[in-house]
């Protein structure tokens, strides 16, 4: 192969690298600057709204990896009630099939991503940990009313 074009291609390449060097860097310096995640993000935990739940255990049946363990029983009015719901966030693959399967829309995904723990035992949650409080931030996955309350997503195409 001949060195055709006498180094012109190399010079063009170097001009482009120099042009890119003069752009503003696109790094986000993490703990000080954070980006807003998407409104439909499938975060690292489940949030459960107990008031609407009818204990049908469709979520546990829909899960592909069996990370939700539910034990239900019938009480005196022949209504289903939930005795135990264990959720293992270490096994969960955050696919969202349980959220879609729920007929009452009472299960949501979280929108937080900073959920690291020091040991695997701390990732097993019981039903009290999953209850929806004022501090939990359910995401808008499969859930348009929650999506409207979350902030806008920062897009890279909108930065310079």
């Amino acid at each position, binding site marked *: 192969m001949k*060195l055709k074009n006498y*180094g012109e291609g190399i010079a063009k*390449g170097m001009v482009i690298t120099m042009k*890119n060097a003069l752009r503003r860097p696109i790094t986000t310096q993490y703990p000080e600057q954070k980006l807003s995640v998407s409104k439909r993000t499938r975060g690292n935990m489940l949030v459960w709204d107990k008031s609407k739940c009818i204990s049908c255990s469709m979520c546990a049946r829909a899960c592909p990896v069996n990370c939700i363990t539910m034990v239900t029983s019938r009480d005196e009015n022949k209504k289903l009630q939930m005795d135990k719901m264990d959720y293992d966030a270490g096994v969960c693959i955050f696919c969202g099939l349980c959220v879609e399967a729920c007929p009452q829309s009472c299960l949501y995904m979280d929108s937080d991503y900073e959920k690291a723990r020091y040991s695997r035992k701390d990732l097993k949650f019981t039903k009290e940990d999953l209850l929806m409080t004022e501090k939990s931030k359910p995401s808008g996955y499969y859930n348009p009313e929650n999506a409207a309350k979350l902030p806008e997503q920062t897009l890279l195409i909108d930065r310079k």
Partner: protein
Amino acid sequence: MSVFHNILPAVFDSAPLASDWPGGFWAHMIIFIVILFIFVIFMAMAFIYFERRVISRFQIRIGPNRIGPFGLLQPVADVIKILIKEDIVPFNADKILHLLAPMAAITPAIMVFAVIPFMNGASLVDLNIGILYIVAISSVSVIGLVMAGWGSNNKYALISAMRVIAQVVSYEIPMALVIIGVVLFSGTLSMNGIVQAQSIPYILLQPLGFVIYFLAAMAEINRTPFDMLEAEGEIVAGFNIEYSGFKFALFFLTEYTEAIAISAIITTLYLGGWKGPFLPPVLWFLIKVFAVFALIIWVRATLPRLRIDQVMGFAWKCMLPLAIINLLITACQVIFLPDLSQWVLVVANFVITGILIVLWSRFFRITGDKVET
């Protein structure tokens, strides 16, 4: 032995500041050796930081900026990390070679700094054969790399060692020929004399020589596009592969020390050394060294690497004939046109450079074909 006694006074007589120091000649020498050593190590760390920040800007990201203000203590953190690692020697390795290789690699790189002038006449020793000393010393460092490759008992390191011999030895020759061109113009081999003889910087008088020397020097210090030896990706860091701890730190520093040495030599030979208006000469020297290093980083950020047979083809078929032609033309200019104004020579040399590069790229192939088995 008598020859040796005759040379020594001649060498040391040309050092200007020796006689009026307290403690005499040897105290002066030892203090300045220590100062030079500290300066070289400090500059190597500064170059590591500079390279990481500048390459990050080419890749539109911010480099290290967490440790210390603006990340200035990052090289210190790197050095501490490397020094506290365990020193592993492979099982069947040749222990003596494995131990001596880093030392054999870094010593010539630091020895180059003995003759580089930082101010007028201010080098450790002002040898009147300065540039010859540099050419001789810088070819010794390849022995260290080959010892590392052989003594590691690893096939990847062996491949890298074979490549290193071929590459470094074949790029010595165009380098030496081009230096002769500079020496013809300046009339002296001493580094300080070359700087003083540059009324206009030699980069204008010898553009072809600058290009050839720049590429040959990058091949000597194993930087992209000639970094086949430590190509992470094919041979996974080459001769460095079995080193950790302090010995790896020495190899790492060798690479940057050689880069500073090459930048300093290019500054002295082609860019006018410490000459410049207004600012003190040391500052001009440092600015020029950083500018040459920034050019080296720019080339590293853009270009992919060449294959080893293409590297050899490039040296023997392109650079060597061009270096010989450069020498011929320079000699003709010095002998037959000594009184012509230097600016006419500048224009003529640029035109000749352009013609030669176009001719060479049209007519020469630099690579072989697929090997039939």
